[in-house]
């Protein structure tokens, strides 16, 4: 039985806010540090992301005169709430499987879109032309990667015998087959675009749009966005681990290997970030819809054939 206290604990402390934000800030430090090492630099100290947030919270919040005030202020809260709910959902289904049904893969897909939608809303409410260009790009990017992401999850659902619950899916490892591996790599790229890292950072594009979608945000609201993207760095790779790599398990050894898998996915993301230049939005759309789409159609066909004839490695 789950009481209200238990649910509050889940949302605020363990898989939820404190845990995800702490691990997320650490992960965003890791991203900056490894990027620095790749470029033969020293990089920032461990506490740097925390200090950035603390500083932003102490700064003035500017709201543009022509902005739609309430949407502008509300959007970061919606984004944060979305990623908080997503990480709680993933954590509960990973560490308390079978205890309570909190949602399945379809709920997770919906929750994953929420931060991007909030970003689109917030930046289009800011009445800045730079942010408007960024918003248009972000919208196209969301349309671009959602299709292959859903197709990749169809492969997962086929490979795990039609299971939709996250805890049930985590008992299979779809990545140990050809179609599953293809789906894993494509969804890794989609996750990359969702976090908004190079090569898919054209919505922020500091060098051409002056931070694009986030341009008009300052002070505490910017801190909320930074916290949201830090928490995305936990929730999204966790989701891939849960769905493709066999999840965490409940034994200490299982949790340790799960964390190793998470770090592995994070390192892959960092390496992709550091070895690629920014692509144009039309190139990204073509890449996601045509190349990733075709690869996933082939993967779905392979997975279906494998499922019908009982060949596990297809």
């Amino acid at each position: 039985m789950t009481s209200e206290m238990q649910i509050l604990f889940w949302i605020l402390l363990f898989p939820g806010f404190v845990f995800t934000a702490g691990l997320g800030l650490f992960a965003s430090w890791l991203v900056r540090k490894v990027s620095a090492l790749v470029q033969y630099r020293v990089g920032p100290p461990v506490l740097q992301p925390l200090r950035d947030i603390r500083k932003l919270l102490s700064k003035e919040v500017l709201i543009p005169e022509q902005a739609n005030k309430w949407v502008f202020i509300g959007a970061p809260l919606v984004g944060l709430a979305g990623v908080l709910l997503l990480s709680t959902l993933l954590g509960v289904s990973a560490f308390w499987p079978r205890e309570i049904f909190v949602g399945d893969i379809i709920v997770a897909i919906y929750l994953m879109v929420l931060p991007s939608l909030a970003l689109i809303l917030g930046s289009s409410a800011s009445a800045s032309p730079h942010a408007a260009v960024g918003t248009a790009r972000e919208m196209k990017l969301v349309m671009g990667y959602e299709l292959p992401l859903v197709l990749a999850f169809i492969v997962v659902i086929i490979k795990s015998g039609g299971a939709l619950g996250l805890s049930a899916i985590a008992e299979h490892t779809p990545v140990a087959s050809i179609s599953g591996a293809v789906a894993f790599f494509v969804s890794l790229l989609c996750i990359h675009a969702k976090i908004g890292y190079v090569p898919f950072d054209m919505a922020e594009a500091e060098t051409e749009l002056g931070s694009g979608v986030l341009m008009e945000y300052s002070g505490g609201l910017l801190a909320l966005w930074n916290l949201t993207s830090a928490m995305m760095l936990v929730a999204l790779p966790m989701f891939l681990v849960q769905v493709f790599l066999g999840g965490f398990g409940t034994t200490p050894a299982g949790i340790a290997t799960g964390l190793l898998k998470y770090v592995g996915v994070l390192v892959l993301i960092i390496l992709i970030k550091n070895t690629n230049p920014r692509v144009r939005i039309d190139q990204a759309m073509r890449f996601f819809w045509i190349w990733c789409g075709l690869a996933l159609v082939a993967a779905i066909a392979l997975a279906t054939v494998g499922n019908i004839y009982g060949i596990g490695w297809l």
Partner: protein
Amino acid sequence: MALSAKPIKKSPWVFHVNTGACNNCDIEIVDLLTPRFDVERFGIKLVGSPRHADALLVTGVVTAQAAPRLREVYRQTAKPCVVFAIGACACGTGIFHTGYHVVGPVDKIIKEIDPNAIIAYVPGCPPKPEAIISGVVKALSIL
């Protein structure tokens, strides 16, 4: 409402404003981000929007055309913020002080709109990256 400038010390995000510099100081500023100097060690990050910035790195004599832009950028910056005048021109208009197009230096223009602005000076033509780092550290240490 006066906000404390203390938290800026540990993570000063900088925005680069060119008000008619010859590009020499700008190149030295870009040098700061290279592996040799790597100011990200101190949490310094170059940002693309004055709304995110804690410090404005202003280079160049302020020309008649650039002055209204500099005022606007300063107004748009989230307070509290620090202004750094980088290079001889920004500090005191340098060799261009008799030029017909010069309305600067930087501190004069900034003080027109905010008499209490925090302004730090790093002279040199151009200042060495070491000098810029030392100027930034000294300025932040007295905040």
